[in-house]
């Protein structure tokens, strides 16, 4: 038995690969495996079929112990056409299993990607290759059903799913239930997909596909009830939790943009839970609607990606000066400009921290795993309302789509926002944390006018007084700096007595943890700190930084946090930077860390 196995299923973006991946993930989790996934879809919705531009992939790692990444080299590759083979074969381990669709391997199919039909012959000795006439076999199962040829062919993704289920010793029951639910309005499609699934399963069984090495034991994890959760689902569930538990409707406003739109899709299902969705005419309108609703006393968030964050900058400044609570979720993608819209990056950090004119500080948080997004959104709302401030949450394309098991929380243990209105008749009177009084329209005796003009620190009326402006700039900064008191103590993982500390932030947690574990197992001592809070920085960070001889900052940009740590704490932190649009691979991180530790420093 192996510790973990990694499979990637790839095909055209219209092949239903994501659906197969999702169902495989749920089934694997139901069987008690730990799972991590990495969907990878192209920027084009339906690029020319059979070309590399249109390849859509879904990678899944499953293991019997807790794992932290979706793996980087593949044990099994299911590739539905030559383009899929071409783009993913490089990741398949030598001796790995390659399953291909024989029906799409004609000379013409190969030529579409400029490949020779003998491509597979040349590599056949390196892999275990199984060719299946996928379309032919799928169509054979559909005889007698009243379906068009196109509909019948479409069932091929369930044929693949059946095959893979058998390969990994997973029962088909859950997937059959899923088919029944998904196609409940069309009996013919229901039958077609179920037959295809069973046929795939039986085909694998009949040809006795070697599955010995792909079977796993069961994971041991903390007792409790678990489900699979993606970053996007975490956000939507947190929104539903906040609205339901506070019994206050929550506004989600957004404008379609990849990859943040997925949050809108999830939230659209939650109206009964008090989550109200407003699809605005543009990114600016989305955040402005939030500001208006926040002035009205409602909880609000807007989500965006890439250029959308630029468009929200001016409005964020208004939220800073009017001191209105709102949350902006930025699902970072690779930039600049349109960049690589479906790929991941952490390059919006500087924009989140500084991207507004004038001194306009606000808190910036970064969840570290898909499930952590749930708690991060709740914390963001708690901070936003207590301190009366906008908050930015930095997710990224990887975190949004990746999945992990999530222990269903005890709702009583959650620290939900405590909504207090009309604390003082003067809107700019402050609580002990410097949060101002949130005075709700409709309340007699609390009438006030606020806006983008500087406000008198006492009365909240418009003030052009120089000393008052200086006081307000300092006050807004002090208010945000004080938020660090809310954080839990920093946790150093790995070997905390090592000379070298690796710092990461946000979604790189899994890769860094795996890399640090691997280093420590190999006798290369490394400590690891994953930051969730980028502004303000944790109060206890400095003391830890000073304990280590070498500090490395790993991030998916050109070194933005590294620069910040260098300038703030005056230490010689060094970057591990990557800007490829992909998550870190463990091996890359291990190599980079070893370079530093074994060479005794960053500078040779």
């Amino acid at each position: 038995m192996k510790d973990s196995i990694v499979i990637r299923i790839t095909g055209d973006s219209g092949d239903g690969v994501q659906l197969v991946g999702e169902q495989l993930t749920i089934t694997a989790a139901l069987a008690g495996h730990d799972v991590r996934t990495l969907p990878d879809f192209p920027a084009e919705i339906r690029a020319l079929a059979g070309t590399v531009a249109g390849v859509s992939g879904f990678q899944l790692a499953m293991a019997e112990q807790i794992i932290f990444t979706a793996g980087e080299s593949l044990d099994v590759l299911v590739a539905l056409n030559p383009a899929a083979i071409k783009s993913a074969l490089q990741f398949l381990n030598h001796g790995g299993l390659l399953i291909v669709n024989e029906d799409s391997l004609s000379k013409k199919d190969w030529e579409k990607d400029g490949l020779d039909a003998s491509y597979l012959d040349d590599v056949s000795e390196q892999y275990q290759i199984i060719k299946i006439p996928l379309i032919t076999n799928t169509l054979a199962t559909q005889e007698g059903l009243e379906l068009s040829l196109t509909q019948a062919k479409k069932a091929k993704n369930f044929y693949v799913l059946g095959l893979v289920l058998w390969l990994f010793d997973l029962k088909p029951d859950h997937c059959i239930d899923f088919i029944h639910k998904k196609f409940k309005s069309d009996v013919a499609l229901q039958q077609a997909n179920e037959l295809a699934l069973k046929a795939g399963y039986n085909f694998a069984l009949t040809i006795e596909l070697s599955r010995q090495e792909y079977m796993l034991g069961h994971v041991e994890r903390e007792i409790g009830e678990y489900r699979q959760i993606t970053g996007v689902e975490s956000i939507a569930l947190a929104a539903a939790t906040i609205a339901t538990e506070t019994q206050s409707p929550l506004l989600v406003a957004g404008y379609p943009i990849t990859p943040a739109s997925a949050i809108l899709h999830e939230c659209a299902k939650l109206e009964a839970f008090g989550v109200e969705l407003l699809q605005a005419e543009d990114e600016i309108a989305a955040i402005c609607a939030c500001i208006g609703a926040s002035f009205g006393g409602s909880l609000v968030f807007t989500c965006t990606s890439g250029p959308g964050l630029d468009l929200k900058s001016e409005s964020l400044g208004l939220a800073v000066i009017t001191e209105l609570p709102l949350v902006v979720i930025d699902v970072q993608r690779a930039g600049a400009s349109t960049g690589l819209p479906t790929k991941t990056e952490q390059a919006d950090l500087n924009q989140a921290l500084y991207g507004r004119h004038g001194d306009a500080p606000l808190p910036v948080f970064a969840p570290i795993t898909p499930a952590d997004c749930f708690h991060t959104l709740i914390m963001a709302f708690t901070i936003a309302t207590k301190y009366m401030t906008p908050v930015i949450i930095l997710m990224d394309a990887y975190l949004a789509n990746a999945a992990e098991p999530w222990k269903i929380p005890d709702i009583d243990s959650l620290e939900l926002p405590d909504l207090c209105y009309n604390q003082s008749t003067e809107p700019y009177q402050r609580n002990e944390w410097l949060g101002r009084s949130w005075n709700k329209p409709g309340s007699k005796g609390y009438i006030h006018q606020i806006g983008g003009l500087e406000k008198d620190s006492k009365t909240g009326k418009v003030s052009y007084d120089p000393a008052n402006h200086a006081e307000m700039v300092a006050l807004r900064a002090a208010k945000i700096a004080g938020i660090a008191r809310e954080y839990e103590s920093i946790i150093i993982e790995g070997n905390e007595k090592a000379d070298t500390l690796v710092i990461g932030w946000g979604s790189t947690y899994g890769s860094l943890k795996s890399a640090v574990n691997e280093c420590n197992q190999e006798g290369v001592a490394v400590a690891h700190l994953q930051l969730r809070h980028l502004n303000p920085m944790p109060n206890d960070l400095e003391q830890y930084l000073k304990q280590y001889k070498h500090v490395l900052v790993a991030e998916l940009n050109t070194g933005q946090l590294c620069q910040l740590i260098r300038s703030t704490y005056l230490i010689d932190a060094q970057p591990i930077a990557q800007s490829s649009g992909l998550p870190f691979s463990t091996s890359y991180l291990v190599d980079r860390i070893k370079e530093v530790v074994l060479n005794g420093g960053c500078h040779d």
Partner: protein
Amino acid sequence: MTNHPLTRKDFSNDNDVRWCPGCGDYAILAALQKALPEIGLPPEQHVFVSGIGCAGRLPYYMNAYGLHTIHGRAAAVATGLKAMRDDLNVWVISGDGDALSIGGNHLIHCLRRNVNLTILLINNQVYGLTKGQFSPTSKAGQVTKTSPRGVSSQPMNPLALALSSGATFVARSIDKDPAHLANILKLANQHQGCSLVEIYQDCHIFKAGAFDAFSQKNNRAENTIVLEENAVLAYGKEGESALSFDGDIPIIKENGSTELHKHDPSNFMAAMRLSQLSFPEFPVPVGVYYQSSRPVYQFSNKVKKERSDLLDLFRSKAS
């Protein structure tokens, strides 16, 4: 509701009003404060949301909740507020640059959604707060600081834009006719749906007297048509003339002629025709051009679920 009858004083505050002497905004503020007591809601039920521009300061001068936002975005801000707080009476205060240039997108979508707001589009054909550049409603040839040889493009038609965007209440009034303005503001606010009132306003500094040819007390009768439902489009010192239409072609007739066009605010095409009239060739219609009814943009704003439902939702993908 308040115990005493509401008066203008209930809607005034002690903030210093800082518009230039002679600014038409004073008259608009006064007309609002006249209309509000008649609407009958107490001050705390009203919210004034403004953008940037001279008119943007208006919320500071009202005893009502006020939010002075950023350039062009007042309609978007008000949309979010009204969507979540249907109990409030929300007004949008905007100008020609604010609503039609930088905020054009928000305006058309606000009208399209039919958000139940009252939008005051205060049109003075110039950028005032930035000290005299041409605006989207400046006339071709208008000389400003940024158009020393005259504006080269044609101006926007705010009423035609509002109609084609799906506005359900479209009206026009003039700062120099405060009684008419107060009445139109009241009607606009009472309308269920998105109302747009274009107010011709005199910028005393950068476009002084822009509308004087028809807006003055002594020339208004000859040059404006006060639109009344089911009435002919009469004007003139003694009401002796009437505007009518031959198909889509406007024609001027003697009042009392047969088959004169009568104003029907529910007739969209008639409103469009009226919006196309240009002065001085034709008199300027003021009043309600168009009014219709369709569903307003609204959320349920009810949390129908409780903790047990939440736990079921959590478990929907349980393992």
